[in-house]
C-alpha cells in the first residue's frame, strides 16, 4: 500500500515537472531522427534548411521528411525561434510565400512530443524535434538546442 501511494506520488511529481519543463523556455529541445540513419549529427544550418524547405535530403542523399509539432506547442516555438530564426507569425508568412505558388509545402503538424517521437521511431525518412526529456532509445538525437 505504501509503495502504491509512493509510486502515485512520484508519478504525479514527474507529470508536474514535465509540464513545468515544457512551458519553461530553458527546456532543451532535441532534433531527432530514426536510429538507423547513417549520420550522428547535423549542423543548425542543415536542420534549418530542411525545415524551411531549402533542402530535401539528409547528408548522404537519403530523402528527408521534416515534421513539426502542432502550432502553439512551446517546443515548436522554441525550435522555430532558435533554428529557423522566425516567430510563429514570421514562420507562417514564410510558408505562405511558398504554399500559394506550388514551390513548397510546409512540414506536416504531427502533434506533441510523444506523437512526433512515435512517428520518428517508425520512419527512417523523418526528422522532428521534441523536448529532450522525451528522448529515449527509439530515436537518435542529431542536434540539441540548449
Amino acid at each position, binding site marked *: 500500500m505504501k509503495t502504491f501511494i509512493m509510486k502515485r506520488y512520484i508519478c504525479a511529481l*514527474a507529470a508536474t515537472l514535465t509540464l513545468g519543463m515544457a512551458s519553461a523556455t530553458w527546456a532543451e529541445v532535441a532534433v531527432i531522427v530514426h536510429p538507423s540513419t547513417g549520420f550522428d549529427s547535423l549542423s543548425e544550418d542543415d536542420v534549418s534548411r530542411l525545415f524551411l524547405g531549402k533542402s530535401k*535530403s539528409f547528408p548522404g542523399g537519403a530523402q528527408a521528411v521534416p515534421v513539426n509539432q502542432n502550432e502553439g506547442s512551446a517546443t515548436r516555438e522554441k525550435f522555430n525561434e532558435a533554428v529557423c530564426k522566425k516567430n510563429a507569425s514570421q514562420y507562417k508568412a514564410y510558408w505562405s510565400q511558398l504554399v500559394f505558388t506550388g514551390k513548397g*509545402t510546409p512540414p506536416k503538424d504531427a502533434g506533441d512530443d510523444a506523437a512526433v517521437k512515435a512517428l520518428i521511431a517508425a520512419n527512417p525518412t523523418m526528422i522532428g524535434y521534441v523536448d529532450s526529456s522525451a528522448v529515449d532509445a527509439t530515436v537518435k538525437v542529431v542536434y540539441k538546442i540548449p
Partner: protein
Amino acid sequence: MHRPCVTLGVTPQMKKISSIRNTHNLALAIALGMATPLVHADDIDFSGFLSVGGGMVDDENSLPYGGYDEEDFTLDDNLLGIQLSGNVAEKLTATVQLTARSENDYEVDAEWAYLSWQATESSKVRAGRLRTPFYMYSDFLDVGYAYAWITPPREVYYLPFNNVNGVDFYTTATLGIFDTSFQAYFGGFDDELDLNGDDIMESASTRNQMGIAGTIGKDWWTLRAAYHQADLSVDVTGIAVPVFGTLGGFADALTNLGFADNANKLLVDDDSVTFAEVGLNIDTGRFVAAAEYVEFDPEDALLSKNKRGYVMGGVRFGDWLIHLTGSQSRDEASHPEAGIPVSPQTAPLIGALQAVAASQVVERDVVTLGTRWDVTTGTAIKFQIDDVDDENQGDQQVYSVALQTVF
C-alpha cells in the same frame, strides 16, 4: 501501478491525431465536392487566403489612387482565394487556385491552374495557367499575409498581366553556401485592360511571351533579377483624341498622309516589348528591407518607357512591424512623331502625336507609411497611409486598412 500515469499521457495525443484526421477528411470532402475530376486523388491539400480591406482619399477632386476615389470610407477591397492541390499520379500534381474579388463582383477566377511534374527532387515542369514571375512578390501577390504592405507598391506593381498560359521550368540549387532558384517560362495571355483610366476596356494579348527569373540568397537576404519579352497587342484604336476622334482615326489619317511608320508607332500591334526587374529582399527578424527597380521598354509601341522603383525599410517590435516606403515612377514618352519632317504644315501633327505619347507618361512619387500587426498566427491587420505626389495630376493622400489571413 505505473499504468494510470502512462495512460493519462497517451490519451490526449490520440485525440489530437484523430482530430487531425477529421480536419483532413473535411478538407478532402470539400475538395472532392469542388473538383470532381480529382476523385481518385488520395491526398488533397486545401489552403486559402482572405483579405478584407477598405480606405478613403483625402481629396476626391484630385486623382484616384490605389482603387480609392471617395472621401468617405469604403470597405470594398475584398479578396478570397482557395487553393486545392492533389497528386493525380506519381510525381504529377494538379493545382488550382480560385479567387473571388470584390472589384470583379466576386466572380470566381482561376488565377492558377496547372499540372506540375516533379522532374527531379529539385526541379519541376508546370503546364497550364501560371503567375508570370514579373516581380519579387508576383508569386504571392494576392496573399497579403505574406508581406508587409496591404498591397505591394503600386508604382512598380502596375502591369496588368499577372498570369500567363503556358509552360515553365523551376529549379532550386545550392551553390556553395548560397541558395539559388531559376525559372523560365513560355506562353501567352489574352486580357482586357483599362489603358488610360477612362473605364473603357481595351482588349490586349501577348504572344511568344517568354522570360527568366533567378534568385540567389543566404539566410536573411535574397537578390532577384528577371527579364521578359513578348509580342504585345493592345487595341487602342477606340481611345478618344481631339480632332481625329479616335486613335484609330488618327492612325488612318497618318497613313493617308504617307506617314505609315508613324501610324504604326501610334498603335500597339504585335510590338516586341521587354520588361526587366532587379530586386533585393532583407529580413533579419528585427529589420526588414526591400527594393525593386523595373524597366518596361515598348520599342515601337505608343506606350511610354516605364522606369519605376521603390525602397522599403521596416522594424519589428514584437507583433508589430512599422515600415516606410518611397516609390517613384519616371516614365519617358515614346516618339511617335520621329521621322516626320518639321515644317509649319506638319507642326500640328507633330504636336498631336507628342501629346498622345505624353498622355502615357507617369511621373509620380509616393511615400507610404504602414504598420502590420500580427494579431494571431495566420492573421494580420494592416494600416497604411500613401502620400501621392503626381507631376501631372496633383497630390493625394490615401488611408487604407486591411485584415489579411491565410488558412
